[in-house]
């Protein structure tokens, strides 16, 4: 599957890059980061034009993110049962979520599609989403194109190393999140126990 996709890049060029980035932003499990690294390597070897490649990658990522956001917004009616949780996430993203949105574009990229949907469903304003989203995608595209261009001769090594770093960052983030939720839960339990005894 990955090999087939990598073969699509030299054969179909930028449309293949665009489609895989767009779909990956919606949560389809495609190796978009690997495609972007390879595009960087192709830019360096003269197989792809620099400016068009950067613009295609950036544009597709932004359109993909915003499509996910809109899907979340218009599908939120179907998610009625989880409204409370989604509202909480939405409130968090709206008030303090700029970093979460920014980092989930590149450092904890696997969380990106979920954050897009949650932001849409949790009624985060579009203006709130846009700035960190654009900034994050600039970093993602810039980082992967330059790394691909610089280390194209060791692409497999690079892609292995990056996916390990991203995997570590993501699992650490989830772990920290779980610990925090657990603590909050315990604190709440304690409070309600104390309240029960007092009455």
């Amino acid at each position: 599957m990955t090999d087939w996709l990598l073969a699509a890049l030299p054969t179909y060029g930028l449309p293949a890059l665009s489609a895989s980035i767009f779909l990956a932003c919606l949560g389809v499990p495609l190796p978009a980061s690997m495609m972007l690294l390879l595009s960087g390597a192709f830019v360096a070897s003269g197989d792809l034009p620099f400016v068009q490649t950067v613009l295609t990658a950036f544009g597709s990522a932004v359109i993909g993110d915003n499509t996910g956001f809109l899907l979340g917004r218009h599908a939120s009616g179907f998610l009625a049962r989880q409204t409370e949780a989604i509202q909480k996430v939405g409130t968090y993203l709206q008030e303090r979520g700029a970093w979460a949105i920014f980092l989930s574009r590149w450092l904890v990229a696997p969380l990106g599609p979920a954050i897009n949907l949650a932001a849409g469903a949790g009624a985060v304003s579009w203006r709130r989403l846009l700035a960190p989203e654009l900034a994050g995608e600039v970093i993602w595209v810039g980082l992967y194109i330059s790394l691909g261009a610089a280390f194209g001769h060791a692409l497999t090594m690079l892609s292995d190393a990056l996916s390990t770093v991203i995997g570590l960052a993501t699992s650490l983030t989830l772990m920290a999140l779980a610990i925090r939720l657990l603590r909050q839960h315990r604190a709440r339990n304690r409070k309600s126990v104390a309240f029960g005894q007092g009455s």
Partner: protein
Amino acid sequence: MLATAFFTVRGVVQFIYWSDPAHRDQALEPWMPLGFVARSYDVERDALAAALDLSPDANRRVPLEDLAENRGQEFEAFAREVEAAIQELRSK
């Protein structure tokens, strides 16, 4: 926590694997265009094309697989020729 442990172990294994320079030359794959191969193996792209009797301009972004087909060759046979050409260019 399991996932964190997994990625840590994976990082160490990868570090050891890639520390061996023999693992760093990437094998030729059917999807690779010639310019990409030239860059990977640090040889001149035009020199590599010339060594294979290919015109440098006609071969932008054409995967090895298609180049082989145009020459009426199997990919494996063509890949061996490319490897031989790279060895020769490197030894110059």
